[in-house]
């Protein structure tokens, strides 16, 4: 019954870490990972590219091209580590911030922008990518993931579901119900909580007085806290949890201990509620810097390599920007599309009326 005051900088003792902020590889009794240099460079590339996409999106929002953007800055390792742990058959359920996971699922970044630009509410095919739509209502996707996992069970398939949510989300009834369902049905699901220390302006203490990973024990399944800025540890821990799920050993809660380096969204002003020091301290634990240091120290990559990735990132940024600006506005009558799968007379009636109404302006100078 201790109050967890470890938010902020001090890494709590129970944290699984395989790569220190300084880029040192460390051992953990329960988790290890064996990656080829190629794979490690691949992770580095992922991290850099998703950060670049994110930066571009923030810039686009500042220029009025997006209505809003939820930045993943600082959470790249949590997302790439867990995202790269997935097999094609696994299914991921994101919040609105999982741009890094989307990247791992081959979702075109421009499709993510569509939602924030207001062109649609979700522009990719979740089935094609095994990456569900972004969910904005906090926590509700956790139940979808558990239901999906129950379907996997019924199919006898070799797959698992993973569901992303934030520290704030752990307070929602739905999230806790999803823990119950998963445990009672022993569903093949991994709960991946990115504890980025903040739910908009509310620090973790407003949601829990003990570390979040411990929530799972009350529901009878394992919880584990991983250094969310350590892409190796995130990959190793998530892989293991997914394997357990696929093998019929039920759910795991992973708390990726990380930090929201930016604002909650581009509409937010974090200076109103948090001190600059905190951010400075976390910058020293940057997920990309530590992997870069590791690569460099271990001579797995040289300056030319880093420059090439940066160039690739810049090109990607430019491409994303260009295609974002080219995105056509939806047709007004699209309002009535896809509301129902089958014919619906009211949709037809309102669509016709509206089409006639729009037509009445044609040629006139009005509107």
């Amino acid at each position, binding site marked *: 019954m201790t109050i967890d005051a470890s938010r902020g900088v001090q890494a709590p003792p129970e944290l699984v870490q395989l790569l220190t902020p300084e880029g040192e590889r460390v051992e953990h009794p329960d988790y290890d990972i064996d990656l080829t240099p190629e794979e490690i460079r691949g992770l580095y590339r992922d991290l850099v590219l998703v950060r670049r996409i994110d930066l571009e999106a923030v810039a686009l929002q500042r220029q009025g091209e997006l209505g809003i953007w939820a930045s993943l800055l600082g959470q790249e390792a949590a997302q790439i580590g867990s995202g790269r742990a997935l097999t094609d058959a696994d299914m991921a359920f994101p919040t609105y911030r999982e741009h890094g996971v989307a990247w791992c699922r081959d979702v075109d970044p421009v499709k993510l922008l569509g939602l924030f630009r207001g062109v649609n509410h979700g522009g990719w095919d979740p089935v094609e990518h095994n990456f569900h739509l972004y969910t904005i209502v906090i926590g509700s996707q*956790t*139940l979808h993931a558990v239901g*999906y996992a129950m*379907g996997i069970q*019924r199919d006898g398939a070799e797959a698992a579901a993973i569901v992303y949510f934030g520290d704030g989300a752990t307070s929602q009834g739905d999230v806790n119900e999803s823990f119950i*369902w998963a445990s009672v049905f022993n569903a093949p699901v991994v709960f991946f909580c990115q504890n980025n220390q903040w739910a908009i302006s509310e620090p973790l203490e407003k949601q829990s007085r003990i570390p979040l990973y411990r929530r799972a024990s009350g529901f009878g399944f394992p919880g584990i806290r991983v250094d969310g800025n350590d892409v190796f540890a995130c990959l190793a821990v998530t892989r293991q949890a997914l394997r357990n799920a696929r093998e019929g050993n039920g759910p795991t809660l992973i708390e990726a201990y990380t930090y929201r380096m930016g604002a909650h969204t581009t509409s937010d002003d974090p200076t109103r509620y948090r001190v600059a020091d905190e951010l400075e301290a976390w910058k020293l634990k940057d997920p990309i810097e530590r992997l870069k240091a590791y690569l460099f120290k271990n001579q797995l990559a040289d300056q030319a390599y880093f420059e090439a990735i940066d160039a690739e990132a810049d090109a990607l940024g430019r491409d994303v920007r260009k295609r974002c600006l080219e995105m056509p506005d939806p047709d007004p009558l699209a309002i009535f599309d*896809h509301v129902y*799968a089958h014919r619906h007379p009211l949709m037809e009636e309102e669509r016709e009326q509206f089409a006639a109404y729009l037509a009445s302006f044609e040629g006139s100078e009005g509107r």
Partner: protein
Amino acid sequence: MTTLTLAKAINEGLRRAMEDDPKVLIMGEDVGKLGGVFRVTDGLQKDFGELRVIDTPLAESGIVGTAIGLALRGYRPVCEIQFDGFVFPAADQIITQLAKMPLRSLGALKLPVVVRIPCGGGIGAVEHHSESPEAYFTHTAGLRVVACSNPADAYVMIQQAIRCDDPVIFFEPKRRYWEKAEVDTSPEAAAGWPDLHTARVVRPGGDVTVLAYGPMVRTCLEAATAAEEDGRSVEVIDLRSLNPLDTALVTDSVRRTGRCVIVHEAPVYSGFGAELAARITESCFYHLEAPVLRVGGFSTPYPPSKLEEHYLPDLDRVLDAVDRCFAY
């Protein structure tokens, strides 16, 4: 032809749907061994196993939320909400997820989820067990909302609802669960099934149109019989579907009769009858001899059961409205 109660007709319909399609699942509180508190799922777990008939933890949001997930994986879950008054913990999953996810996916996802809700009063129950929450769902775009009123329809409609690729809120009139009628369960009959979204004239008449659905259909039929003695010919329409509405059938009737009374158990204020009245008035303005009148529960919470006979529209209240209609 078999004689079935309404509860048994739904049970048979569920069974048929489960036989026809291995993806159909039943889920809810006490739906397994107990067969549901109204026995609507009686015997299904025994015959289809615990993987297809799932006794869930006690949480309605969880029921609908996991049903959505199962539907995303290709299943067709039929959720039971134990009583009308307990659907509200699931409101968020129904309104923000179930109803909106297909549009969110630009049609890539379909959510063939049925949410069965035993509804209405008249069974002498305690609080929350007698409500008619349909208006919360008719106002929620993305849902289809239907209500059955008799065994034959119930048998057919539940199968159609399950086959529908859209989410369907399926209201069952609990006080009619034990009423019996002939049901044609032969496979051949299926060819003649009316569309899930058609209304039906259950008693033709020329003087006034009475619109009802679910438990009130029978009440209105009785009122029509009584009105006949007063020399009034009442046309009773069973709406069957509340969203979408079979507008053509309804407005044709009202244009013919020039008068319309709407009957439902839910509170009148801001209830579904308001939509009917507003819509009909707009379409039939020049044909109406009187304003469309509404008969319903009072605009109060459902009262304790000793008062429910007063609260619920009954034959006399319907007749009273019919009379008022003719006073214009």
